[in-house]
């Protein structure tokens, strides 16, 4: 009985839950499920749709569990969560499956899991804990070095897979966090210049494989690029364009069938074709509402730990949305980043909801004392 009592949320706390964010996120996730069905039903029946719905239900249960306890408890387990993520990445390095030239997935009981998604959460929590312990003083060289080390370990392991997209997501999360916490402009400029020089060096060496270079450059002129990524980009832009103002209608899209991975990385193109510009604007509005409310939670958090985690989620969402929609409409290179809460993928959906659950918890307990 006591166990069941622990599974109930305090009534006063229940009033503090940000229901608008939850409702909006569920709307996006349902839109995602419907679009995935539309993209796959003719070839795979309802297999992908069913799988995504199951993961959505699991994710919502996970959010509920994450709301039950005070988020400050997470800070106590930050070290374990972080290193578990790193160990998961190391295990993936040895036992992961190689798909499309990258070892990003590990098979656990017949389910393909993406360790980098879980390591990302660990990294955000660890950075939040460390910045909280430093009282936000990250311009101290010793503190800064410590943060760089904690950010670099998972990023290097993810880069080694090689998963350029996820490495970039992590990089922008870290950049967002250190910028908001107040890292000196001089340090940011010096750091960015060093990274730029390093990238130029890496680009001209053999570290970046030819297929990665093609993926990164084909978006500049997809029509002139006959590689698979160039064709993928050209097809995607064509599909998005065919939607027009109101789209072709549910289950009436035809153009998206030419895009591989149309239910994961290119789910936005399917939505654009079937719902048109109006449908896409509604989706952007929904994302805008979530981001606005998460920024509000970051501002009103009672401690630095809460603020940093919220900023981490906002940076993650902002970069993922820009990168994914950008590659669908031809303004960003293809990097295999999913559209948060929309694209098919259990790991991506579950980890996005886990981070959201933690941030909702932060928003719910923003007041110092809850009786």
């Amino acid at each position, binding site marked *: 009985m006591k166990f069941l009592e622990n599974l109930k949320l305090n009534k006063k706390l229940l009033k503090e839950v940000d229901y608008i964010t939850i409702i909006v996120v569920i709307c996006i996730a349902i839109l995602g499920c419907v679009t995935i069905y539309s993209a796959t039903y003719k070839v795979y029946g309802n297999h992908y749709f069913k799988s995504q719905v199951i993961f959505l239900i699991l994710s919502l249960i996970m959010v509920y569990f994450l709301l039950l306890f005070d988020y400050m408890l997470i800070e106590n387990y930050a070290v374990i969560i972080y290193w578990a993520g790193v160990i998961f990445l190391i295990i993936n390095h040895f036992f992961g499956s190689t798909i499309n030239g990258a070892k990003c997935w590990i098979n656990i009981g017949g389910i393909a899991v993406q360790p980098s998604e879980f390591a990302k959460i660990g990294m955000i929590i660890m950075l939040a804990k460390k910045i909280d312990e430093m009282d936000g003083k990250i311009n101290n060289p010793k503190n800064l070095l410590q943060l760089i080390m904690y950010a670099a370990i998972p990023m290097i392991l993810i880069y080694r897979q090689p998963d350029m997209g996820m490495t970039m997501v992590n990089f922008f999360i870290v950049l967002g966090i250190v910028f908001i916490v107040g890292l000196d402009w001089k340090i940011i400029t010096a750091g960015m210049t060093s990274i730029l020089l390093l990238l130029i060096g890496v680009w001209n060496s053999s570290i970046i494989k030819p297929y990665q270079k093609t993926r990164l450059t084909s978006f500049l002129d997809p029509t002139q690029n006959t590689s698979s990524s160039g064709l993928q980009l050209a097809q995607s832009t064509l599909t998005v364009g065919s939607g027009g103002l109101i789209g072709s209608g549910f289950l009436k899209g035809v153009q998206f069938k030419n895009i591989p991975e149309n239910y994961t990385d290119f789910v936005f193109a399917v939505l654009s074709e079937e719902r048109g510009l109006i449908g896409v604007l509604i989706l952007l509005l929904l994302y805008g509402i979530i981001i606005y409310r998460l920024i509000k939670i970051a501002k009103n958090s009672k401690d630095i730990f809460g603020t940093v985690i919220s900023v981490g989620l906002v940076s993650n969402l902002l970069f993922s949305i820009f990168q994914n929609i950008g590659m669908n*409409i031809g303004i960003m290179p293809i990097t295999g980043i999913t559209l948060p809460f929309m694209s098919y993928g259990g790991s991506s959906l579950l980890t996005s909801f886990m981070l959201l659950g933690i941030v909702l918890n932060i928003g719910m307990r923003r007041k110092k004392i809850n009786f």
Partner: protein
Amino acid sequence: MKLKGDDEMKKRKKFNKINVLFISMLAIFSIIIVKLYYIQIAK
């Protein structure tokens, strides 16, 4: 664990850059909408 209280103002000052995230969102969405308008309507 640093709580809001005496140093609330200090923290607010420290994190006043949070609004930059909102401005970034507006900039990102504007770029996307302009490009979408170009390929879905104008082209």
